[in-house]
């Protein structure tokens, strides 16, 4: 019995979730139409916003760079559509704020040919060339954090990248983006790995995939080019297996030090969709101007995976898939870590891996919070081995500094496992987010 | 602010003067009170002891306190320390028994008690608990329970042939199961306390009874000599 459960490598703790992926994992990726107006935010990534290089009224062609990177930790933006710059102004963001964006109006008659750029030839490029090309392509982590990928590939002096780890775990329920990409863009993935290996100097690559996607494992294994040091490893189905720390632990039995980076254990983790995008774009010198998005959930009529131009307003996207009039909650990302959206007017950005919409039928009145009964479910769930119960009590008493100093609050990566299992329905993660925000505020002060 | 500018070197004479002065004053006060109360307290103590001795030796009317000297011989004392015995005499100056203090661990804390031994009957003829911290209403039945106290009206402590050991060691049995004269009928609900009494008596009698029997004449004669 134990050996059955232990068949695939994993980490300790974590939770088992209903995965709800069947609705979309069989659906091939479909191309999306253009919305009447596309809104390209200048800040779709961690780091400095990019700077517009176009003026209002200017005509742009699809794939053209319309905003340049502002420094190293920043990426350029590319026009998702051939059309006119309607205006450059504020647009609502996922966080609820208004941030600067470029509004584009597509030409109805255009062929929407993607402009070809300067290809990055892998054999003639130095690692630095590849890093520059990745930045020029505007590539950020497509796994959700939207961290500029090229920054990760540049190790500080003295650090060696030994293993390139490709994250194809996709442990969030409902989402199947990475699954489809792995099935349909197998070669892009391997090409991307080739670029990344060269850029980082890593000696081998491991693709980690949850064991509920064995078809992707087979597909990727079958397509491994002979000269590429890649292995494809299935890992146990458990949340949050996809977090880079957990994946590294599962596959290499190494622990990323507290407040450290994967780099500290010689690893760089890149999401599989990011890798595929590198493999797809770099040979053509193109920039990222669309991405694969899962749209799923009980409130969605035509669930599936769609290749959607960046900047497509969510409202338009949802209209295309028959959103139920009874929709009550829409999340960006999966239901475990995804953000609830307050407005459907936000544009789809590079970090968007999926949308899940619930109707009011699933939105039963959230059960009222009760005191912690110290059942230790959360302790047994936390993949970081924190004590969420104690942290929750401290948070309730506003003892934020103690949380950080004595109970490793800052190591919490907000996976939500604790809140998921808590029988007292304590909003643990939410308290930790608040606490972390205040601790950061205090430490900055 | 006078204190803030205090010299680093405190005055010496006032310190001696006040401390020693107060010390002497206190000494005088204490001694006065001590001297005043001493006879009263001593009388109180003696009365209490007397009452206890006469309780455990019902026939006694007069008490003489003896001490064991050199582990061999009993000598009358007025206020000694060490192992003390109180011999009780009746109106005719005949020795009616010996009251012995004994102690040991009870349920809550040490129990100290006094018991009367009658050399003539070779039995214990009375027992009184002097101090105990046993639970009120429970363990303190060893002081209040009539049935329990009745055990000590005649508790067999006969010596065997050798004259150095008791024929039967005193023991406490479950309430209502006493069948032998050397047994104590225990108290249900205060088993521990009542067993403690039995153990204290057993240990003490095993030590004292042979001694007393051997040196009975010390007590009998000494008593008359020491009579005021």
């Amino acid at each position, binding site marked *: 019995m134990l050996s059955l459960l232990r068949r695939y490598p994993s980490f300790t703790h974590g939770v088992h979730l209903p995965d709800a992926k069947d609705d979309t994992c069989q659906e091939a990726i479909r191309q999306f139409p253009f919305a009447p107006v596309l809104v390209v935010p200048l800040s779709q990534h961690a780091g400095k916003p990019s700077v517009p290089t176009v003026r209002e009224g200017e005509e742009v062609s699809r794939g053209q760079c319309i905003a340049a990177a502002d420094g190293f930790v920043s990426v350029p933006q590319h026009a998702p559509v051939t059309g006119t710059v309607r205006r450059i102004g504020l647009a609502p963001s996922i966080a609820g704020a208004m941030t600067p964006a470029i509004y584009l109006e597509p030409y109805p008659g255009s062929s929407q040919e993607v402009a070809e750029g300067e290809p990055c030839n892998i054999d003639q490029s130095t690692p630095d060339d590849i890093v520059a090309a990745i930045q020029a392509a505007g590539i950020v982590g497509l796994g959700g954090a939207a961290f500029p990928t090229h920054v990760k590939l540049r190790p500080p002096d003295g650090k060696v990248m030994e293993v390139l780890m490709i994250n194809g775990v996709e442990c969030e329920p409902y989402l199947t983006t990475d699954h489809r990409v792995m099935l349909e863009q197998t070669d892009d993935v391997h090409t991307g790995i080739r670029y990344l290996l060269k850029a980082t100097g890593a000696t081998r690559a491991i693709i980690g995939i949850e064991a509920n996607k064995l078809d992707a494992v087979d597909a990727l294994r079958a397509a491994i080019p002979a000269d590429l040091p890649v292995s494809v490893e299935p890992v146990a189905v458990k949340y949050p297996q996809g977090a880079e720390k957990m994946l590294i632990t599962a596959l290499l039995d190494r622990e990323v030090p507290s407040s450290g980076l994967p780099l500290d254990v010689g690893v760089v983790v890149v999401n599989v969709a990011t890798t595929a995008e590198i493999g797809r774009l770099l040979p053509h010198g193109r920039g990222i101007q669309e991405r694969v998005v899962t749209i799923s959930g009980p409130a969605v009529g035509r669930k599936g995976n769609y290749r959607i131009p960046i900047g497509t307003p969510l409202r338009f996207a949802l209209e295309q898939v028959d959103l139920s009039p009874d929709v009550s909650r829409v999340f960006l990302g999966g239901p475990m870590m995804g953000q609830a959206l307050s407005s459907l007017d936000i544009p789809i950005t590079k970090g968007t891996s999926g949308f899940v919409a619930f109707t009011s039928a699933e939105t039963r009145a959230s059960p009222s919070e009760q005191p912690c009964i110290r059942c230790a479910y959360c302790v047994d769930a936390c993949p970081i081995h924190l004590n969420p119960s104690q942290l929750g009590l401290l948070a309730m008493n506003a003892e934020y500094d103690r949380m950080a100093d004595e109970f490793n609050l800052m190591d919490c990566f907000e996976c939500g496992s604790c809140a998921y299992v808590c029988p007292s329905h304590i909003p643990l993660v939410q308290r930790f987010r608040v606490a972390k925000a205040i601790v950061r505020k205090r430490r900055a002060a | 602010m006078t204190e803030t500018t205090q010299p680093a070197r*405190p005055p010496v004479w*006032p310190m001696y003067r006040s401390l020693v002065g*107060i010390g002497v*004053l*206190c000494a005088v006060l*204490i001694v006065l009170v001590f001297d005043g109360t001493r006879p009263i307290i001593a009388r*109180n103590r003696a009365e209490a002891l007397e009452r206890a001795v006469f309780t455990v030796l019902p026939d006694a009317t007069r008490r003489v306190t003896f001490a064991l000297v050199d582990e061999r011989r009993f000598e009358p004392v007025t206020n000694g320390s060490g192992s003390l015995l109180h011999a009780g005499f009746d109106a005719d100056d005949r020795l009616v028994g010996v009251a012995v203090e004994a102690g040991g661990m009870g349920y809550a804390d040490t129990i100290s008690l006094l018991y009367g031994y009658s050399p003539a009957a070779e039995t214990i003829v009375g027992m009184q608990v002097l101090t105990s911290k046993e*639970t009120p*209403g429970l363990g303190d039945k060893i002081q209040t329970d009539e049935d329990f106290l009745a055990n000590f009206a005649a508790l067999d402590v006969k010596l065997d042939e050798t004259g150095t050991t008791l024929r039967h060691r005193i023991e406490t049995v479950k309430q209502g199961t006493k069948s032998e004269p050397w047994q104590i009928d225990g108290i249900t609900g205060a088993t521990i306390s009542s067993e403690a009494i039995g153990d204290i008596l057993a240990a003490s009698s095993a030590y004292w009874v042979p001694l007393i029997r051997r040196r009975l004449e010390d007590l009998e004669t000494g008593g008359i000599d020491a009579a005021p």
Partner: protein
Amino acid sequence: MPLPDLPPTTPTDEFVKGLWRENPVFVQVLGMCPVLAVSNSAVNALAMGLATTFVMLMSNLLVSSLRNFIPKQVRIASYILIIATFVTIVDYVIAAISLELYNALGAFISLIVVNCLILGRAEAFASKHGIGMAALDALGMGIGFTVALLCLGGVREILGSGSLFGVALFPEAFQPWVVMILPGGGFFTLAGWLLLINYLKERREAASVMLQETPE
């Protein structure tokens, strides 16, 4: 050190404060050991209270009259000497009055020496005030202490033995609550009194807030 805005006090004030506002047991929570240890019956509580009051009164008087004679460096040592003297005296006097009472109170008579309350009064009050005030303070505190002890002793004796001052209150069949005479009962009873007092205070504060708010 005279504080500039110390409110002026009256003799009545000094006397009354110990009874309620600064009650040593219920408010300051000082001198807890004898309070808990000898409050298992009302008689013991009363005797202890009176003994403590006496020691406090006498030591306050002596400290106050000697206050200009004792240098700061030997203050505490002198106070301890004085207090220990009066405690020794009380010890002998009680033994002379009644051996039974003396045995019941046990070591706690001697332990009055280290009752935090008495040293505290000598240090905080008697050493700074005249004889009259010091006496009133000691009396007030002492009576407050005694009353508090009686409150505890009363409850514990009534429940624990079914009597008050040794007089049986209930029919023969009454089942005593042994726990009340045990240490645990002491803690619980004191906690209960504190709870009651806190609760009443809270109620009064709530009521006064209501009064302030209603005119609006």
